[in-house]
């Protein structure tokens, strides 16, 4: 498989504090990759830097193109999409307007097809298409944020904590849809605190601690790792050791 996104030796700093240190990762086409780790490990920082919101030292390529000099908007045009932790919706605008703006860079005819697809994926959004985005429930807002990102027809969708603060039944729904995305040819880079659910649907996983990757490999192996289980999956094996 060809690497769609490739990050090598990335450093991201807030002033003097280095939040991400020498991180390298790859996402191939049609792959779901997850980054799990505790709160404050630097996962969100890494995604923001890959998207161009924060400055990154190191090399990032997407589809073979070096992203170093590209603005957020140019990265969107290349097919990189981010559903940010705070969702960044247009809260005073309707659901449909939010979705239409998601296809801002796409030709009108294509946008129409995209809209039908997003409505098929999230029937709930279709019911509420005239409602203001700010009046939706948390789960619906998450669906809208994902739907809006999908409207731009991304090749790789980066999801930052999609399950944060949502009821378990909605979380299950969102993870089901992430699985469906891959089936339709979209790669996913998923950042999650809910490691159990993330590792279940991912192909490969990276474990992040204090700004560094401490473990990586096929998701099954990572899930089976005793230390990971102890730290993130909420149950203890006998004699688990720290990573």
């Amino acid at each position, binding site marked *: 498989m060809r690497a769609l996104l490739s990050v090598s030796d990335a450093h991201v700093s807030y002033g003097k504090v280095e939040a991400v240190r020498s991180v390298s990762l790859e996402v191939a086409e049609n792959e779901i990759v997850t980054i799990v780790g505790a709160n404050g490990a630097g996962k969100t920082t890494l995604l923001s830097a890959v998207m161009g919101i924060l400055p990154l030292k190191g090399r990032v390529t997407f589809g073979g193109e070096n992203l170093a*000099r590209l603005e*957020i908007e140019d990265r969107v045009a290349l097919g990189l999409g981010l559903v940010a932790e705070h969702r960044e919706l247009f809260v005073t605008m309707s659901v449909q307007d939010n979705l239409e703006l*998601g296809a*801002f860079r796409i030709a009108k005819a294509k946008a129409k097809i995209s809209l039908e697809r997003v409505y098929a994926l999230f029937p709930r959004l279709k019911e509420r298409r005239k409602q203001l985005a700010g009046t939706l429930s948390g789960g619906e807002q998450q669906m809208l944020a994902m739907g809006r*990102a999908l409207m*731009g027809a991304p090749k790789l969708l980066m999801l930052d904590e999609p399950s944060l603060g949502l009821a378990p039944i909605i979380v299950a729904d969102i993870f089901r849809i992430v699985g469906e995305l891959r089936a339709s040819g979209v790669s996913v880079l998923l950042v999650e605190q809910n490691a159990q659910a993330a590792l279940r649907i991912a192909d490969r996983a990276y474990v992040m601690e204090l700004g560094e990757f401490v473990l990586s490999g096929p998701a099954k192996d990572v899930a089976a790792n005793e230390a990971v289980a102890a730290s993130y999956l909420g149950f203890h094996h006998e004699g688990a050791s720290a990573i």
Partner: protein
Amino acid sequence: MLFLVQDGITNGAIYALLGLALVLVFAVTRVILIPQGEFVTYGALTYASVASGQMPGTAKLALAMGIVAFALDLYAARRALHVRPIARAFLTNIVLPGAVLALTSWVVSRQPPVGVSIALSLVIVAAIGLFLYRIVFQPLAHTSVLVLLIASVACHLALQGLGLLFFGAEGQRGPAVLSTAFTAGTLRFTGQSIAVYAITIAFIVGLWLFFGLTLYGKALRATAVNRLGARLVGIRTTLSGQIAFLLASVIGALSGILIVPITTLYYDTGFLIGLKGFIAAIIGGLVSYPLTAVAALVVGTVEAFSSFYASNFKEVIVFTLLIPVLLLRSLAAPAVEEEKD
């Protein structure tokens, strides 16, 4: 009494347009557009100059600013020089203002019809507004509101000084857009005041349609609501900024053209007019369009009454309105910290 209300509404309509432009520009770019008043003056005096057969200096300014803007575009694209964007930049930054300058100098000596003078003035001021954003505010887009405000004050002073250079210290009046008049009861409606109402209403309806129905209008609103969100769907902040400044300069110029047949305008009159639009915008909290429009009508009416009953205190009364409003707003709303981005 009634004629004062009428007068107030005529003025208020203009303040409403200016207030809306200020709210729009602030929401999209975080710039408090002090030079809005200069757009009014430039529009009015360019129109008056062209109509009276004089060459307005603003046409030359537009070309000069266009050349600087083009140089900046070239510099920004120095690493990847592609033919198409550069040709486009050349067209809007140099060919357009150049053509307008040529057309203006050809037209001024030939007693142009009112419509032509208006169109030329609007295009000239629109170009100045667009280039002002490109030269000053686009490079500063990532800075704080305070830096943007200081730059805005600088632009105001520079443009005002240039206004004095272009138009001289004497005031000018322009020909009326509509010269008919009729009387209804005790009120006399001049063609010009009808034009003010009609154009203001048409413009507000037009803006409403633009923001409600078109993709670019929605993109502008989206940028105002959530700048990062807008960037994440691929809406360029610079594009939104350009549209906002273009609208603001056209609105300013249009206001100027509407009032210059009624009042004599000097090179520095625009500032005071813009400031009253600003009061309306502040009452609207720099976010609410309907509140701004209503506040503008109140400002216009208060001004009309105070200039009739206590004309010496006209400005004092109008600007004093700000204090109770700010006090009320500060009591009603919790302290807002400046947005970080």
